[in-house]
């Protein structure tokens, strides 16, 4: 591969000189093209230099952290390496059908050769170490027919925090949208150094000017509510988001010479970036945003503004009604069949859906008792306990460390979900997979309740690749007047890890109850397919 690169180099130089000698014959377009090519060349050189400096940086880090750090990034990248290699093979083949209409055939050839050399270098670099920041590279090639370029999936920004290039791109994007960039806080455990870790004491809103002309006040409030944990839970967050968007739409006026369908979507983009900076978006929020964007862009251009706005508001109301409220009712109806008299049901944390189901079943006079399992640092189980006891359901409260002690008494486990991934894995609050594992060992059926709007196309097999790191200071607790971890930042070998989500394999889950009915965990892709066909 390196050989073709070197032969490409001198050939290309001759080509340019040739073009220069023919200089007076160059038309304006050709000059522009030349300029573009030179710019691209420069960019690729810079990238190579940056990559080289990154390598040396990585080597300088302590050895123990380096090896686990490079392990997880290689795993998501190695599936991409084979996809890059096939691009190498077809591109040299495309050199031969050079575009016939260009007067200087040498230039097209030279372009193709240079591209081949770039891809060769890129592929060899990938093969050597498994670099992470590949997105910039596929942006360049234009002329080769599109079928030769297999779909190269770009990694989302929020799992590439240790890549300074990606951070630079993000900073530029946020600058353009006039949103402050939130900086990471504290020492990150090396296995999770590719994720953001923010501090709750430094909310993004402190860096905003008041009043902010760029961001709607409802969104600012929502961002603060997210980052401080005032609004928590995937359903609550989605509903709050939709209500805030309704306010935005109500206050929106189309500027002159703009179309509502395009302008409103552009207006929403900085808001979404801002909310993402305050707290990473959940899968349910992502689906809701996709839906809104689709609805907005489907507004016909001849629609009057008032009409369009009221239509959008109705759409949002209907989405909340159908996907969240009615879905909860349907799920409660199906779940009641699975709750029999004398059952002992175990729940973990506070899931609005599971609480709803248990309250409904209690209304229908089913005799059961509940064991609420809770864990630090969020202690969400206390909220669930409060809600259930208020209804009169008899409950027991344990911490997650006691789960293998009480499981022999349990007849069923009901879990909520943050999202259901396309390969059947359940993403939920950290600790859920532990409970599912122990329940499986005791042969207790595990039921997951999840609305279909939380189904997501992503595929994940472990909890490392994409997760959320919460404020590490939450783990600090004061007992008997002593705060042991108060000065954790001063201890160089100490890291605090506060994970938010984990991923449960489908073998541990017996049944998923959705608003479409009861399905096994492995049928999630079928439902996604059916939904896409409907839409």
């Amino acid at each position: 591969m390196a050989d073709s690169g070197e032969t490409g180099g001198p050939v290309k130089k001759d080509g340019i000189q040739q073009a220069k000698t023919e200089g007076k014959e160059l038309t304006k377009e050709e000059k522009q093209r030349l300029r573009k090519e030179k710019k691209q060349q420069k960019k690729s050189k810079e990238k190579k230099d940056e990559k080289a400096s990154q390598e040396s940086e990585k080597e300088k880090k302590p050895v123990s952290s380096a090896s686990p750090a490079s392990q997880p990034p290689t795993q998501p990248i190695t599936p991409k390496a084979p996809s890059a290699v096939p691009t190498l093979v077809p591109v040299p083949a495309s050199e031969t059908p050079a575009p016939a209409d260009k007067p200087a055939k040498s230039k097209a050839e030279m372009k193709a050769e240079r591209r081949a050399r770039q891809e060769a270098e890129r592929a060899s670099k990938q093969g050597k170490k498994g670099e992470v920041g590949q997105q910039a590279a596929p942006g360049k090639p234009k002329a080769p027919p599109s079928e030769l370029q297999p779909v190269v999936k770009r990694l989302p920004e929020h799992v590439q925090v240790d890549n300074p290039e990606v951070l630079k791109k993000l900073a530029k994007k946020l600058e353009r949208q006039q949103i402050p960039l939130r900086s990471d806080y504290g020492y990150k455990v090396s296995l999770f150094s590719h994720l953001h870790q923010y501090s709750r004491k430094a909310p993004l809103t402190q860096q905003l000017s008041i009043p902010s002309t760029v961001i709607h006040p409802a969104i600012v409030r929502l961002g603060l509510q997210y980052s401080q944990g005032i609004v928590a839970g995937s359903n609550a967050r989605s509903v709050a988001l939709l209500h805030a968007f309704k306010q935005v739409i109500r206050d929106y006026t189309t500027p002159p010479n703009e179309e509502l369908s395009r302008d409103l979507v552009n207006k929403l983009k900085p808001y979404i970036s801002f909310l993402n900076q305050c707290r990473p978006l959940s899968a349910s929020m992502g689906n809701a945003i996709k839906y809104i964007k689709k609805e907005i862009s489907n507004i016909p251009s001849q629609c009057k503004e008032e009409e369009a706005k009221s239509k959008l508001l109705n759409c949002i109301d209907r989405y909340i009604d159908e996907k969240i409220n009615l879905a909860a009712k349907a799920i409660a109806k199906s779940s009641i069949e699975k709750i029999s008299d004398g059952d002992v049901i175990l729940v973990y944390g506070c899931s609005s859906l599971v609480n709803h189901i248990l309250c409904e079943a209690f209304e229908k006079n089913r005799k059961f008792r509940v064991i609420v399992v809770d864990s630090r640092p969020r202690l969400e189980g206390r909220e669930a306990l409060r809600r259930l006891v208020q209804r009169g359901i008899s409950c027991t409260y344990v911490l997650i460390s006691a789960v293998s002690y009480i499981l022999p008494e349990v007849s069923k486990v009901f879990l909520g979900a943050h999202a259901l991934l396309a390969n059947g894995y359940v993403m939920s609050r950290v600790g859920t997979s532990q409970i599912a594992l122990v329940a499986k060992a005791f042969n207790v059926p595990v039921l997951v309740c999840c609305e279909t709007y939380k189904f997501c196309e992503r595929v994940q097999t472990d909890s490392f690749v994409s997760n959320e790191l919460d404020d590490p200071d939450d783990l600090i607790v004061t007992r008997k007047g002593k705060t042991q971890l108060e000065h954790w930042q001063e201890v160089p070998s100490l890291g605090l890890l506060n994970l938010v989500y984990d991923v449960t394999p489908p073998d541990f889950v017996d049944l998923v109850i959705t608003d479409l009915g009861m399905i096994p965990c492995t049928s999630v892709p079928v439902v996604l397919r059916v939904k896409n066909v409907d839409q």
Partner: protein
Amino acid sequence: INKKFFFFFLVEYFRAQMMKDPDMASAVAAIRTLLEFLKRDKGETILGLRESLTWATDCLTGVDSSVAVSSGGELFLRFISLTSLEHQDLSRCKKVMEERGELFLEKISMSRTKVAKLCHTFIKDGAKILTHSYSRVVLRVMEKAAAEKKRFSVYVTESQPDSAGRQMAEALRKLNVPVTVVLDAAVGYVLEKVDLVIVGAEGVVESGGIINKIGTYQMALCSKAHNKPFYVVAESFKFVRLYPLNQQDVPDKFKYKADTLKTVQNLSEEHPMIDYTPPSLITLLFTDLGVLTPSAVSDELIKLYL
């Protein structure tokens, strides 16, 4: 008065169908009965028609409480009403429904042959097969394998309380297949000699598990422990919209015979006739929709029912 008359008619016709052709699945007999009922129904509206068909299925389940009858009935209803019934005239609609009913019946009478064609290739020459109780589908598979000149021997469990296994042994002897009848308790003992296990099913549930004669779950557990493949052969009309989580979760109306349910007060004294085998113990399911893994059953069910 009308209902009583129809009730007797249904029961008699169903029993007659079962006696006429003992080889026919009870679900097929039920569907034939439902088709006759449809032809004679004097309902005025389509909704009324659907309701009376559901009532008829319930009556038939009261006579023969197998899972297959209820699933067959529901599928029949779905199949005939899934067309766009846009005709103004109710009698024309009914005619369309009747035609579709006949079509459905034709399709399912071919299903056993399709299953046999798919499954007999998995019986290799010199194989030793273990099967449970009397299943007409498994018999058909073995007939096809014997017709293909394969040499194999069969172990059949006696399958108490009705000793249906002996009936199976008789039928196999007629095919000149060497057969041994073993006790239900001897399944673990005999499994080391066996190459594969094939059983039929009374119902296939949404999770991909099966409902079958009592003793199937034990056999599945033992074959998993011995790492022997456990195959299930079932026609597609046996797919049912149940999702049991464990043995206790299977509804009582399927566990006991229909007369037991009506006469006996305290069901905890009775022996259940069926049990549930979870999908983790099943290797493959052979159906007329193809050879499926247990997780693909849900896919097919979603296609059939949604």
